């Protein structure tokens, strides 16, 4: 049973560029949430996708956007990259409505470095 898988694991971009990160949820899950974890900090909620729609959003600018596909996989897009966007981006999956009671499963993350 595959868990949450993310790609790429590491990438380096320069300021102003755009990046796309990908996530496949755990088998049987229908909801994907994205988190940003800066160095020395805890994960911060970016947004959540269910039924191909953004359902909740954290305090992140519009440069951060996402998409969910019919197979429940998801992408996170960040435009006009800033140095401060350097972080570990974590994807988490769950069944809709069940992710806040310990049934949220995380991938290993995509480490983005912006130069």
């Amino acid at each position, binding site marked *: 049973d595959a868990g*949450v898988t993310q790609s790429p694991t590491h990438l380096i971009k320069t300021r102003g560029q755009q990046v796309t990160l990908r996530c496949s949820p755990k088998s049987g899950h229908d*909801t994907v949430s994205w988190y940003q974890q800066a160095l*020395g900090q805890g994960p911060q*909620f970016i947004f959540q996708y269910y039924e191909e729609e953004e359902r909740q959003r954290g305090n992140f600018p519009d440069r951060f956007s996402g998409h969910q596909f019919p197979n429940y996989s998801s992408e996170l897009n960040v435009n006009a990259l800033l140095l401060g966007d350097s972080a570990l981006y974590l994807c988490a999956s*769950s069944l809709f*409505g069940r992710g806040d*009671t310990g049934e949220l499963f*995380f*991938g290993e*993350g995509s480490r983005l470095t912006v130069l």
Partner: protein
Amino acid sequence: DQQVKQNSPSLSVQEGRISILNCDYTNSMFDYFLWYKKYPAEGPTFLISISSIKDKNEDGRFTVFLNKSAKHLSLHIVPSQPGDSAVYFCAASASIYNQGGKLIFGQGTELSVKP
């Protein structure tokens, strides 16, 4: 505005002794609290949780205590083992705002259990 705080960035404990990790929160709407454990190069994994209607929850060597009046929770690990060495994140959610998947994390405490 840090709604969930872990004021100790690190903790060192001898194998076999008790580890106590602390967490404070400010939002009285939080009604579910979780602890996640993170090893390097891995995503966070769920450890234990507690609902706001309880004041204690046990799972093997792990016990979480909740003091709602003080807005404080703690994780006790007894006995501590070297394999417990990891970063521990406290997280909280508010079902009234939430459709699942949106957790507010603390900054983490790095636990080191020495043989």
